[in-house]
């Protein structure tokens, strides 16, 4: 199977090795076409965003206004903070030049003169690797002023790396833009969408690192080639990051639509100790979990996962064996979202805290049946009622974990305590302010 994003070539991260293997040829090819042709090619290839929403990349680019009244920007999202997701870091380490080349092509297609690659702050090592690659590319004239000579074209583009500082929410596109602007990472209300009103109020496109890294190969080999890989509705390869109770965790680049069971048993080496699987989260911790008995025949692409009641997310597959305490796992997931909620919208800010408190109560063995129902109620009241998708991301695991593993929760809860007051003689008001009987 041919790999697109992480080819098995030694030292591919070095510029000379990349050039020996046809590096930056795709950019040359792209600059001989018009921006509209590039957008059309990417649209036809069927490339869908790899950051979670799986939106058509070409379509997103086509939303950018034509003309040059305002500067335009490209942001590349390498915030990668979704628990269970660790794919972009492989690209930064093993194939940074293809990312840079993808940025150059995307900027040309949308008419951006500057691009910001936003990488999470914890990735010090990988930021340095990317910066090194970028410096090399600048030095050889593939980026910046000297592009004119290198590619014999008028197009110039600068690429900058922006380092995050430990906020999950900055993976949300509008929070990411606020963060680049030097503000708190608060998501913005949409509309206006970034293509109209993005970085500093200018038209902006935001793509995931993996999405952009796919672009040079699509330009080089044509959209027909790309569209024929994997599932027709979500073509290409996907970086699947497998973690948890498997023998051989790691990132595997496989065609979309690969069977989930194949990924777990063939590539990730099966479950430790040959245990049964209780639960799999197929796309990073915010995606609805699947039961162990639901996995047979499940294909890993956006449409197939939607059909079984989950989502592809970032392709971070978390495997939990039969001995896992799912209530504890859910409490840990809830803790994450409580910590990472930016605090802008009340349902998310308060709701995540309430869910965590209740789940901790369940973990301590002090929960009741009503608590479990209450969790679902809170989750449903967060979902869809917030500015950004973090609310949904916090609500889904709770809602679906309880829906699909209700027996786990029922097994540890106590019977409901009656909330009826035991002494019904006086209401609070009467005891607090006794009205003396009037004596005549």
């Amino acid at each position, binding site marked *: 199977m041919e790999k697109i994003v992480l080819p098995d070539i030694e030292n591919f991260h070095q510029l000379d090795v990349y050039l020996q293997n046809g590096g930056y040829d795709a950019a040359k090819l792209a600059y001989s076409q018009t921006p509209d042709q590039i957008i059309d090619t990417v649209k036809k290839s069927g490339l869908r965003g790899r950051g979670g929403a799986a939106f058509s990349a070409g379509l997103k680019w086509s939303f950018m206004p034509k003309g040059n009244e305002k500067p335009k920007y490209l942001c590349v999202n390498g915030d*990668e*903070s979704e628990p269970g997701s660790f794919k972009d870091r492989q690209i930064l380490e093993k194939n940074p030049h293809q990312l840079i080349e993808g940025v150059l092509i995307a900027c040309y297609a949308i008419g951006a003169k500057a691009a910001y690659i936003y990488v999470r702050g914890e990735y010090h090592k990988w930021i340095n690797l990317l910066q090194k690659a970028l410096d090399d590319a600048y030095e050889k004239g593939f980026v910046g002023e000297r592009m004119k000579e290198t590619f014999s074209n008028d197009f110039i583009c600068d690429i900058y790396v922006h380092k995050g500082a430990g906020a999950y929410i900055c993976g949300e596109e509008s929070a990411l833009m606020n963060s680049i602007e030097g503000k708190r990472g608060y998501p913005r209300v949409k509309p206006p969408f970034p293509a109209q009103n993005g970085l500093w109020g200018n038209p902006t496109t935001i793509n995931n690192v993996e999405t952009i890294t796919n672009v040079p190969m699509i330009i080089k080999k044509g959209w027909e080639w790309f569209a024929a890989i994997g599932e027709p509705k979500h073509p290409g390869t996907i970086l699947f990051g497998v973690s948890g109770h498997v023998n051989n965790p790691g990132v595997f680049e496989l065609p979309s639509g690969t069977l989930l069971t194949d990924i777990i048993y063939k590539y990730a080496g099966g479950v430790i100790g040959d245990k049964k699987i209780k639960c799999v989260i197929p796309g990073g911790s915010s995606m609805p979990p699947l039961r162990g008995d639901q996995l047979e025949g499940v294909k890993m692409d956006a449409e197939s996962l939607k059909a079984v009641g989950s989502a592809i997310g970032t392709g971070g597959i978390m495997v939990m064996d039969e001995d896992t305490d799912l209530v504890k796992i859910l409490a840990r997931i809830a803790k994450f979202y409580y910590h990472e909620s930016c605090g802008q919208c009340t349902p998310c800010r308060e709701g995540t805290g309430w869910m965590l408190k209740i789940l901790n109560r369940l973990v301590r063995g002090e929960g009741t049946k009503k608590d479990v129902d209450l969790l679902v109620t809170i989750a449903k009241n967060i979902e869809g009622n917030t500015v950004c998708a973090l609310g949904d991301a916090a609500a889904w695991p709770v809602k679906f974990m309880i829906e699909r593993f209700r027996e786990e929760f029922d097994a540890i809860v106590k019977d409901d305590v009656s909330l009826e007051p035991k002494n019904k003689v006086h209401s609070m008001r009467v005891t607090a302010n006794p009205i003396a009987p009037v004596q005549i």
Partner: protein
Amino acid sequence: MEFKFSEESLQKIEQIIKKYPVKRAAVMPVLYVAQAQNGWISKEVMLETASVLDMNAEDVFGVATFYTMYHKKEPGKFHIQVCTNVSCMLRGGYQIYDAVKAKLGLNNGEVSDDMKFSLEEVECMGSCGTAPMIAVNEDYFENLDKEKALQILDSLN
């Protein structure tokens, strides 16, 4: 405590500002420069950052307090970060966290008296495929178990 950017830092800041069309956008990288120089982000650091970038002090305060990687109090020489999120938890993240807590005698967010160690329970660091992990300052240590994690602590000087 008085804080002024060093010559070297000011040169870095000048380069950083060039990357953005608006000066304010440099605040995050500049706070990193300040943290590298001072070790942590004190009130004085925020005020100085504000004056260098022509920003309101409140805005700098807002940014510095929003992002967890800016230390709002002085961390130890070795800032130990233990991931306990799901992928690490499934492979023993909490055992490591408990062992590290016991060994250092510290709770989450505390600093040892000799300022050598500080401890932080962190959210997912993107090491799920090499879990469990700890990070010491900027370096990742992956594929750990309890013993290996304690050995790493012993090796820090």
